[in-house]
């Protein structure tokens, strides 16, 4: 009897264990597939933040995130290879920050992906042929330029004054838009005839636009030249990280900190330091985390056959000494600080 009872209890236990064991595998709905996230460059904080956002999205939406980035922003062939790999690896979606908007090989690779049923989503910058992608998650650089201009106007007041601009790469979409948005907002001068021009603030005068090719030393040299060329120069506007740092170096070197205002882009540690020491008045910060996260979210929605917005402006935030201690700014500057 004892033995029988023991056997009974054991079999009951075994039966329930078996049942629960059978259930264990079902606790999560399982991985829904792989999403390739292809950035523009390795070793850049901005893209690291994109990866953080993408990884968070993957974790929340049960997607495997295959993140990759070319060795630098000029290595388009590497990026094309990454697209091909994503197709080969049967990714469900490709979230890409295209190095070029119209490089034929890249476009062909993405078209092949799209033809293979893979959803293509662009982040940070778009393709010329927007039919190639389902959605674009990026900063509206035109708006970002305009935000910089409004802050410049605030800094200079109604008196206005001379303003110089150092763009990062001449002809690049982001540089063009950031400069255009800025000048249009500030002076009403724009090459785009569609934009409504307000000519009421003509006391702002953009005296010169130079390009640094994204090179810090070159930006510094140009800023130095501009400072000596225009003694009444009130403000210099730089359109990317390296350019902004170069400008700040020149301003500091010329002893013009605080006198010549500087507005830049992005938020590297050096730039934050320059804000703290008063050389950099403010910087336009994009939201790379949201680009990565929303890129993956849009991919997930497309995988579920849901409608998505064809373009999302993740916005730009002006970060200055006034708001840099705000919680949302801190999170923006360091999205890993959840």
């Amino acid at each position: 009897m004892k033995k029988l009872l023991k056997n009974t209890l054991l079999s009951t236990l075994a039966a329930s264990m078996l049942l629960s064991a059978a259930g264990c595998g079902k606790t999560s709905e399982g991985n829904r597939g792989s999403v390739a996230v292809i950035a523009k460059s390795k070793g850049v904080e901005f893209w690291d933040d994109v990866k953080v956002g993408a990884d968070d999205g993957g974790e929340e939406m049960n997607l495997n995130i295959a993140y990759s980035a070319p060795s630098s922003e000029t290595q388009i062939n590497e990026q094309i290879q990454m697209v091909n790999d994503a197709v080969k690896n049967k990714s469900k979606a490709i979230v890409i920050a295209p190095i070029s908007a119209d490089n034929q090989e890249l476009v062909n690779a993405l078209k092949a992906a799209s033809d293979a049923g893979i959803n293509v989503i662009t982040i940070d910058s778009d393709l010329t042929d927007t039919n190639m992608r389902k959605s674009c998650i990026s900063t509206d650089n035109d708006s970002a330029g305009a935000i910089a201009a409004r802050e410049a106007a605030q800094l200079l007041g109604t008196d206005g004054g001379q303003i110089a601009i150092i763009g990062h790469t001449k002809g690049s979409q982001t540089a063009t838009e950031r400069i255009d948005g800025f000048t249009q907002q500030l002076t009403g001068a724009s090459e785009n005839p569609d934009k409504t021009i307000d000519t009421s603030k003509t006391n702002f005068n953009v005296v010169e636009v130079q390009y640094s090719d994204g090179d810090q030393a070159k930006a510094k040299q140009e800023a130095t030249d501009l400072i000596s060329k225009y003694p009444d120069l009130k403000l210099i506007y730089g359109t990317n990280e390296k350019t902004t740092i170069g400008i700040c170096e020149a301003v500091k070197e010329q002893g013009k900190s605080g006198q010549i205002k500087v507005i830049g882009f992005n938020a590297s540690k050096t730039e934050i330091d320059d804000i703290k020491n008063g050389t950099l008045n403010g910087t336009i910060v994009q939201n790379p985390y949201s680009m990565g996260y929303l890129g993956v979210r849009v991919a997930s929605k497309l995988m579920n056959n849901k409608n998505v917005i064809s373009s999302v402006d993740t916005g730009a935030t002006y970060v200055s000494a006034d708001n840099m201690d705000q919680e949302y700014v801190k999170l923006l500057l360091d999205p890993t600080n959840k």
Partner: protein
Amino acid sequence: MSSKSSIKMSVGYKIAMVIAPIFFILSGFVTNFVYKNGKNLYDTNFKSVEYINSINNDINKISSYLAQMATELGVNNRQADMSKKDDILAYAYSEFDNINRAMNSYQKINNLTDLEKRRFNQCRLGIIEYQDKLAYMDKMTSQMTLQELTSVYMQEMKPIQVRTSEMLEAAIDLSSDVAQDSYDQNNRLHNYINYGLISAAVIVELALIVIALKSVKAKKKIAEKNFQLERAGEKLKNSHQKIVDIANINILTDMHNRYALEQDLDAAIGKESFSIGVLDIDNFRSVNDSFGYGVGDEYLAAVAEKLNKEYSNSAKLYNISGNEFCFIFNKDITELQARQMLDLARENASNSFVVSEAVVQCPVSGSFYRYYPEDNLNVNTLLMKLDNALRAAKNSGGNRIQYISNL
């Protein structure tokens, strides 16, 4: 054996009686637990989705107010428009009060997952940024043109709202997924426990059935064993009888032997009176000597057969030694009848017999005694008495019976 099995049965039923109510109570508890758990999960997830939804709706409402303000109002507009601006902002601020309340409530919900908290944090900071921008816009309305105001709205506020709304929707999706997962998990838990209880109940039932079947089987086995035992007993009895027979019966004459006689006398002496007689073939030795032992044996067998045939109904016959026969007469035979029968038997035995083509005839002597319990004899003295009388008959010429007097 059978009582042991019934003990087993009763233990089985007792256990069943204990286990059955335990099952009922347990399943009651479990159902209650699962229900409560499910309700908690439902409440948590329902609340979280509800709060986020309301935040999202409010943000969208604010956005539409601001869009209206940005597109309709400007710094140079009339006083009426300015008051309209104040109205719009008052709406927006009151919506923010709602949002802040909902955010506080959301953060007080227990059991939120880390992922939910993380996603909500992104939403919360988007909302704070939006609130900041609203204050900025409020401040700038008096300094900006309609176009600038629109730009601020479109370029700065709208993206925050779109992004935050996306994050809020992601938070809702996440909470819904978590809710679905929790619901599924709860259901699975419920199912497992149910399965567990049911299988346990089934197993216990089966165990009882097995016990019952086993006891039936055991009963059958016992019956079988009893039967076998009986048969073995019978066999034993038979073999014992055989042994007894071998011990009591003379193989040659098929008559009871001296051992049997002593047994019977031992049983009878002191209890009842009976007539006992002895016959002995005179000069039997000469038969063996003349015809051989084979003929002697056959002759003895023939005499025995004759005596058996004639007197076994009236007396129990014994072949107590080679050529000596004893009669214990039945109780219903009187002493006189017994005397006559023994004399007749002596005559019968002394007739000629044909054995192995030889004619054998020997005179027969005998002794007779009527035993009474008060005779104060035992088996040995009685037999000795008879033996002495037989010897006396033989000594006086043989072929006659010596009747022993009781005196």
